[in-house]
């Protein structure tokens, strides 16, 4: 899958590049709207990660351009501005998703995968990892071809882990992904542990391996090796 990152902040681009490259995507970068337009005109991208505040103009112009010339491209707006006008006009113009800075790479990854599945580029909505099979259309998970009975949150949890396998996911990021940005409402984030414990038990009951590792009390990791 090919991704074009339109972003001028070099450090951020480097991180995105490294993280997404690691995920097996082909990454290209455009630091300005003009470069972005050229690349979009010449090449075909599956997903566009678009910063709105660019040195030579607004990312919204690039968005319009993409919608006109390459409407099949999925678009995630990435911006520091959370001015509601931008958000509304961005989504009105046909962006698939919207993320405000600062964001987490694991969350961005989950959103990219989600758009990818929705747009069904590969004609395949099933994620398979070893004995685990996740059907994202029917929201069903099976291990060794046996169905798991999961709650909605447990389903989202395992999907988030499998997408971000071998990455340390902090408790905050898990809560943010599952419940929105509410982690400040809790004195302790230990309730996550209950969800992890239940999920681990259900997976092991079906003969699955124990992939979920706790990382020094700061978060969890779906470890494959």
């Amino acid at each position: 899958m090919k991704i074009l990152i339109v972003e001028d902040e070099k450090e951020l681009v480097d991180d995105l590049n490294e993280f997404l490259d690691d995920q097996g995507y082909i990454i290209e970068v455009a630091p300005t709207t003009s470069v972005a337009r050229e690349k979009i005109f010449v090449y075909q991208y599956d997903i566009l990660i678009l910063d709105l505040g660019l040195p030579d103009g607004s990312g919204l112009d690039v968005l319009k351009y993409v919608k006109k010339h390459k409407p099949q491209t999925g678009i995630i707006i990435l911006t520091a501005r959370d001015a509601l006008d931008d958000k509304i006009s961005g989504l009105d113009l046909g962006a698939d998703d919207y993320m405000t800075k600062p964001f987490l790479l694991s969350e961005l990854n989950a959103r990219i995968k989600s758009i990818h599945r929705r747009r069904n580029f590969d004609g395949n909505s099933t994620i398979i990892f070893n004995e685990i099979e996740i059907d994202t259309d029917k929201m069903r998970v099976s291990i060794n071809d046996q169905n798991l009975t999961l709650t909605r949150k447990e389903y989202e949890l395992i999907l988030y882990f499998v997408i971000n396998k071998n990455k340390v996911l902090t408790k905050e990021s898990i809560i943010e992904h599952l419940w929105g940005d509410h982690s400040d409402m809790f004195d302790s984030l230990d309730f996550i542990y209950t969800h992890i414990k239940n999920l681990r038990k259900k997976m092991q009951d079906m003969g699955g391996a124990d992939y979920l590792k706790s990382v020094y009390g700061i978060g969890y990791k779906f470890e494959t090796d």
Partner: protein
Amino acid sequence: MGGVLIYFNTNKLIHKDVENFLVNREEIATTQIVNGESISSLNNYEQKVIIIPPISKLNIPIFTDTLIYDIIDDKYHPYLQLSLNRKIGKQYYHIEISKSLIETKLLVREIFITMLFVFIGLIVLMIVLNLLISRNMWRPFKDTLKKLKNYKSGQSEPIKFKKTNTYEFSQLNEIIEIMMGKIRNDYLNLKEFTENASHEILTPLAVIKSKTDMLMQLDNLNEHELNFVKAIYDSTVKLSRLNQGLILLAKIENQQYGSEEKIDLNQLMLNNFKEYKEMADLKEISIRIDLKDTNFIQMNANLSQVLITNLLRNAIKHTKKGGKIELSASQGILKFLNSGDEITNKNFKMFERFQKQNSESLGLGLSIVKKICDRYFIKINYQYSKGLHEFTLLLDTD
């Protein structure tokens, strides 16, 4: 006042005139006596000449106001009388001449009444003129006032006034236009600064966050090192929340949330109740909702959402595990109750920025709530009784 003045002045003038007349008449009488006319022929109704024994007081005219009975009218009429002692030849005479003041009285009255009519006419004319003038001449001024009243600092169009021929008004409009232009520029600069600040701060924050995220993924970090990274990560999260909160406050203060629509607050409460119930369940908080009547309000949709969620979040955040939350609404009143310990700090200013009960919270949530309430004339009250914190929103129902 003027009428009284005119009355007295005319009266005085006429009096003087009558006095002169009497002096004149007296001189004629004297001449007649000198010419040797008989005294009896000089005596008549208004004139009396008698011979008197010699006296010393001579040639001093004395004027007196007197009433003389009039047989025809059967009334006393006012007269002015001149009495004088004179020596003509060897004889001494006492001469009394009177003149009726009834005509002068009538004259004064006529004048007074005429003046009165003129005055009233003038006053009426002035009122009418004033009305016409204020209606026409002040029109550009009123137009200016109206435009100023309806002006919002956030509006995209600069203020423009109607052209007027009145020099003072065109001056005024010019000055206001220049002044408003300056204010508008300052406002736009401030707005730009707010947006830029948010942008410029959040981008490096995004870099820090993604770097710490990458750092956390390294396999060779020990627990001690990882905890350092986690602390940076936590602070970044907090900083970005703080930034968002402050920007929101600034935007509300700058009235950048212009568009308004009719919001069903009860419905909004119900929707958020459903969303936050899950959060409450995680903390084992029982949450009850009781909505009566309807509460519609004209306000910005985003701000109404912020208002309700901030109050709900506040309730969930400050309720201990196993506590309870009660939400209720009736005509014009919304209540948010949650169980918890009393705030012991007497100086705790609930609705001010950075007032917090624990170091974990930012202390912005309720100040944002207060700002929104102020903006839409909603009264917000807090009280604590029987182990319950109670926030009440009172809507302006007229």
